[in-house]
Each structure stands twice: as C-alpha cells, then as structure tokens.
C-alpha cells in the first residue's frame, strides 16, 4: 500500500465510510452535487477503494473532491452502509494537510473559507457573526437584510437579542476567557497548525499567480470557471 492510502486509512471517516463499495451508483443518483457539477461520488469511492496511489494523488489535487455539499444524503441510501461523503471529508482533510488543495480552483477556496470561519470562531466564538457578514458579499439576503444591517443594533434589540451584550442570550458577546479557551483548543488539537498550513500554501500560490493576498482572497472567493458544470 502507498503512503497516501495509508494516511487516508488513519482517518476514522474512512473506516466508517468505506465497507467494500459494490459500485451500484445509488450515491450518485441521490447526490445534489452530482446533478449540478461534473461529479460522481461512486467513482471517487472506487478510486480510494482500489488504493491506486497515482489516482488518489490526482484526486487530492483535483476540483472533484470539493464539489460535495456534505449533506450526507448518500449515507442514508447506500445499500452497503458506506458514506461517500465521509470519504470525501477524509480526502479533503488530507488535501489540506499536504497542501495539495492549491492545485485546483475549488480547492483554493479553502483560503477564504478558513479566513472567514476560523476568523469568526477565534474572534467572536461563532461560525457566523453579523460583524463579518457583509450585505455586499451576500446580496441574495435581499433588501430586507440590507435594511436590517443598516439598523443592526435596533433591529436585533427588537428581536429580543442580547447583541454584543454581557450574560447569556442571542448573539451575546462571548466572554474573553471562553475565547481564550477556544484558542487553546485550536493550539493543542492542530486547528492553529491547519490555519498556518492553509496560509503558507495559499501565500505561495498567490505569489505564483502574481496576486496580493487580498486579491487572492477576492479571486478565490468570487471567480468561477465554466468548466465545472454538467451540460
């Protein structure tokens, strides 16, 4: 067995998600991503199952593994109790660890995602927070949300939130000692190391693409080639 397959097998999601796939294609039939993208979870599971090192490396560097929405509908319907979505999560985790994610357009999106998500967790204690959810980047939230953001504190007060307030409640300010504990958790569990890995490989890629990090953020956050979609 090759190195990449051995690394994948260390992930419990491979143990839980791969129990001899029979290649029936039920996962692909039910998959919301397969209907939209050029994406076939059956083939991905088959590639991993064959432990073909070269093919696994191609997968880890491809757009393909980033098409899944992690709804895990596949887990319910697989007649063999496999979880193609879990296999995908393990592949993505390895791609991030090894820096292979920068080799594909969809993989490079890990940079803005990591900035947004881990930034929100460590700064506010939430995955999503009003102070970083700009209407300009989320215009689908509609004119009602534009109005809401223009009257943010008063609108949240009307809804009964404790926005940026002390004590318990909706959108309260998470106490600093709790944020410090989250940071300590990131430090001892590999969360901080993961952020640094994503940053390091993204910086190298941005340089190669001739972009500043701000330009790289906007580019990876906004740009979409037209070769991802089904005809």
């Amino acid at each position, binding site marked *: 067995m090759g190195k990449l397959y051995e690394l994948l097998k260390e992930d419990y999601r491979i143990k839980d998600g791969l129990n001899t796939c029979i290649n029936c294609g039920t996962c692909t039939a039910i998959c919301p991503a397969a209907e939209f993208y050029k994406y076939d979870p059956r083939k991905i599971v088959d590639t991993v199952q064959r432990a073909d090192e070269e093919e696994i490396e191609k997968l880890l560097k491809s757009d393909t593994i980033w098409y899944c929405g992690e709804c895990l509908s596949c887990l319910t319907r697989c007649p063999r109790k496999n979880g193609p979505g879990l296999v995908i999560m393990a592949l993505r985790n390895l791609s991030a660890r090894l820096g292979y994610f920068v080799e594909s357009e969809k993989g490079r999106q890990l940079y803005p995602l990591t900035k947004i998500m881990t930034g929100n967790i460590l700064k506010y*204690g939430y995955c999503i927070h009003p102070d970083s959810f700009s209407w300009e980047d989320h215009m689908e939230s*509609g004119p009602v949300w534009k109005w809401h953001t223009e009257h943010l504190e008063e609108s949240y007060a009307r809804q009964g939130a404790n926005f940026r307030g002390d004590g318990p409640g909706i959108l309260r300010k998470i106490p600093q000692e709790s944020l410090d504990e*989250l940071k*300590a958790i990131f430090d001892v569990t590999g969360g901080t190391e993961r952020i640094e890995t994503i940053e390091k490989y993204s910086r190298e890629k941005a340089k190669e693409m001739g972009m500043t990090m701000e330009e790289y953020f906007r580019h990876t956050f906004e740009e979409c080639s037209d070769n991802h979609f089904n005809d």
Partner: protein
Amino acid sequence: MIYQGKQKIWSEYQKEIPDDKWYYVRSCIRQNFFPASEKMFMEICRNVLGKDIYENEHHTTCGGIAYHCDTIPQETAMTIVARQFALMTEAGYENYVASCITSFGNYTEILETWHENPELEAKIRELLWKACKKEFKKPKYLAHSSDLIFKFRNEIAERAKFRLVNQKTGEPLRVVEHIGCHYSKMFPSKGVGGAEYPYVLTGMVESWGGNVIDYPERRHCCGYGFRQYHVKANRGYSISNTHKKFESMAPYKPDMIITNCPGCPYFLDRWQYVIAEMEGKTYGENGFGIPVFTYEEVAGLVLGYNPWDLGLQLHQVAVEPLLDKIGIEYSPEDKYKGLNKKDLLRPELPQGIKCF
C-alpha cells in the same frame, strides 16, 4: 395501506424524550437570521410550559459549520464539543438540547465515533484538559430543539388561539415540511421518524390542524452545502437545489413551508426572492412567494403571538398572505418598527416578488 406502512416505520423510530431539565446551546445561523425563533423556544418552554431550560453565556459555536467547510480538523471540532459538554456537566445538567441541526448531527457523529473508538474519546479528554483544564460527562440524552416542541405539540395545541386552517374555506392548510439533512440522514435512529419518514415536523403540523404535502423532492437538500454557499463563487449550487425543490412542490400549491434546520428557512426564503429577480417566477399565489417558517415561528403564530415579535419581518418572502388565510390580525404599519415603535424606515421592495 401505504399510510399504515409509514406509521409502522415511524413507530420504529420513536424517541423517548425527557420531559424536563435541559442544557440549551444556541445556533450560529439562527442567532444571526432567526433570533426571535430562539427567543420563542425559551418563551414556550420556560413561560408557557414551565420547563427548566438552562443557558450559560460561556458556550460557543460547536464548530460544525467550520468542520463541514473542511477548515478545522476533527480533533479540533471534537474538543470544542467536549468543552460544551464540560459546561453542561459543571452546570449539573444531563440532558443536552441543541438549537441547530448541524450541531445535532455533529454531536451525534462525535458521540457515535467515541463509542466506536474509545481511544479517540480518551485522546479528546486529554486535549480538553491540556487546553482548558476541564472534564466532562457525556449527555445522558441528546435532542434537537424541535424534538422538544414535537414532544409538547399537543400541549401547544391545547393552548392554541389559531389553527393551521384556511379561515375562509375551513380546509386544513397545505404544508410542506423540510427536515434538514443532518437531522437524521446520518443517524436515522436519532431523529423522530428516521430519515425516510421523519415525523418531527409532520407531528406538529397534524397537531396544529394542517395537512402535510408529500411531493417528489421532499427529502432533497435545500442546497446549503456549506462551502457551496459560504463561497460566493459556488452559490449556483445552492440556488439550483432550492429551485429543484420549488419546481417539485409547486404543482401541490403549498400554503406554507415549515422547516427544522437553521439554514433551510434562510435558503428556501431568500432563493425564492433571487429566482423571482432572475426569472420573474414566483411560487405562491398572485405574485407572492410561498412563506417559509421555523417551527418556533409556527408554534408562536398558533399560540397567538404578534407576528412581528416572532421576527417575521426579517423574511424576504411576505408572510401576510398566510396570516390572512389563518385569520391572524397584525399591524402593517408596525412591521419594521423598532423597540417602543421607533421608526426605523422600511426596506426597499424587490422587483420580482410581491412584498410589503
């Protein structure tokens, strides 16, 4: 005959939900977009039903969205959750209720993984101690907040001022229920009714007088897809899946949609607005959309709360046609007022879909 079959399957997925004494953890998405729903959950449980629901300001995100955006390793997600369990343990509670489907799925996945891999649980305990000097007991019972509203659905019905019935025709309202993938697709035995015939929302709708619509794409994802929404470049995935659901449900002429998950009501509401702006197509009657609600919003309406206290003014799809059908009175001029009726102006109106 088929109904009996479904009833039989439902009976195999019933949960014994404890009656009282819960440690409550909030949802990132709901606090942002449906804050009044969490307020209503507390109002119903504490003040209407007199239950002990405890909240501590030190709890944080469970990290579930970051985990499903693949931005944090499993060990980080697990240790954040272990810290939440430690807060529950410190507060002296054993029943844990999460206001979020992604959290509920995350907690379930972690507890099941620890059960299968005790050495991993031991490792996480060590990491939590190293980071926070905290220890924890696992919850005796894990629930999603809709499980509690489901459990108390008949008590709510007994106190109801309105029913999910068209006041003019006397007919039950036609209701689409949308469960949210992570409620039971990963671990069917953990959700009321399982994955194929989830009963958690259906039970509420039936108790409160409505009729649930069965339609072909009933179990299809709303299209959130985590990275498929949070990255602007990917949002075509999200709207395409919502579009598929609406095209599938439209022939059944739903009066309303009730949802279980934090993200689903946002996407089913907002993508209707975007579809209308892009294609000029609306799925409700007379140029309106189909109103989308959280289960607490529906419970609040049934119990007679003011729609603007329930946060329905923060929806982009107008809710008024549904309020009119039920016969709920509301003040149009107060819709966008602040506290003490302070004037906060009004949002612009969209072009493609009727709004007030």
